[in-house]
């Protein structure tokens, strides 16, 4: 699939990194919408069990395509739309579980509970971003990396906590460093 994206990924970027929406893009998108919204809407409704959410996510799918500027040619449209929609479903799932865990945690941490709603929102966004960056790591590697990078624990302490050797911790950290760098380059951040 990545190949396809590169193939269709013809984008103008200005200095702010914003894509310019051309007239052609608009007409292409309209066509894409008319040709595919019916089945995509069914696809989303089946997964979300809620027509309102499905309608929202349908809009989000097309919005994401518009913003990315990557409008797929007709022969790849179905695959591409499915991929984008699935990505949004995964994003929603990620947001959901991060929010749950966040709420759960702040109940136990009164000092965090004092934060303003805006601050909370920002924290959740940051958490989602970090979670995404470390997504491809095995559980222990992710934990080791977070404990070192965020909590500043020593390798020895991490080794004790995770019940692994110090040399394993070092390997986990290396994997974590590589994974988040690669993820960041991939997202073109």
């Amino acid at each position, binding site marked *: 699939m990545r190949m396809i994206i590169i193939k269709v990924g013809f984008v103008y970027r200005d200095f702010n990194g914003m894509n310019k929406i051309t007239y052609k893009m608009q007409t292409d998108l309209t066509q894409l919408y008319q040709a595919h919204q019916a089945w995509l809407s069914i696809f989303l409704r089946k997964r979300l069990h809620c027509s309102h959410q499905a309608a929202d996510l349908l809009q989000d799918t097309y919005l994401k395509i518009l913003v990315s500027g990557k409008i797929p040619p007709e022969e790849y449209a179905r695959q591409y739309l499915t991929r984008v929609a699935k990505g949004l479903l995964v994003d929603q*799932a990620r*947001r959901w579980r991060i929010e*749950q865990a966040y709420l759960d*945690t702040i109940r136990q941490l009164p000092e965090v509970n004092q934060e303003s709603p805006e601050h909370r929102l920002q924290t959740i966004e940051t958490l989602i971003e*970090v979670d995404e960056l470390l997504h491809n790591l095995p559980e222990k590697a992710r934990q080791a990396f977070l404990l070192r990078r965020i909590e500043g624990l020593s*390798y020895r302490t991490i080794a004790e906590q995770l019940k692994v050797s110090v040399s394993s911790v070092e390997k986990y950290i290396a994997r974590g*460093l*590589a994974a*988040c760098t690669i993820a*960041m380059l991939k997202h073109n951040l």
Partner: protein
Amino acid sequence: MMQNSPDVERIQTAAHWMARLWSDIPSDQDHDACKAWRDEDPKNEHAWQCLMNAQERFGEVPKEASRIITRSRQLSRRRFLSLTGFATGGFLASTMYQNEGNYNQLLANFMGTSAFTTATGEIKSVVLADSSQLTINTATVMAMPTANTLALDYGEFLLDSPGSQPYHVKTPNGLIRLDKGQLHVRHTSKYTRVSLYRGQPAHVTGHDMQATTILNPGNSLAFNTSETQSIQKVNPDAISWVIGKLVVNRMPLTDFIEELSRYRKGVLRVSPALNHLAVTGVFTLKDTDRILQQLRASLPIKLNRLTRYWVTISAV
């Protein structure tokens, strides 16, 4: 990846060196060897810089992040979530759990120590050991330290007790005793409001009160640590959330939005200039976006969406 990105292998080598230098006591040899590798090839140095840039991202990450992320992954591992059955955007379907002991096992496992709290948009219904029905509204923080004590830190609940045991409800403002009946308690930053819809008289003892106030069925009382308001008749609309509805009658728009925002994730702001507008109607809490659309259709307002989670309301 971008064309000028370093290759994966080089990033992995850079990561190996960085992990070495981050270790508890990196040796001078480690430092020298890493420096030698970086100097060997400009591409190596570039890979190293990419790693450094990536690490800058973590500068702003709060301390609790590792705990929260690890926890969230446990949530997904417990299959609480699958791509085919999760709810988002606020309202989680009202769930009914049968309870054998003091704590519902499923809930207790999921929520850790605070078994009776709800997320934003969530309305939860629990049957307690004595077959009392407890319904908890959105964004409520509460606990059940003993089989007949409810400690409400924030939010609201409706308790319907058949009367086999008295219930004691604690809020930061005082104590309420319910012998039998349907009791609604709502605690916000302003005050605790207690409404007894039916049953036997309840006893309300505010920290500020000289003596216990007897609250008869059909009556409602608001109090905090500095004042106690006069007794009013209960407002049946105040518990319409139990059936997932928000029912209001000539409520100022600003108050309405404040109420709505309790059910909605993210930030909802309304211009104070709109406080002359009033809202009347029955709204379905399941879809707060839809409520906003309904408001826009009936009032001279405009919705500005910065993101899905940040909506401001201003005059047209």
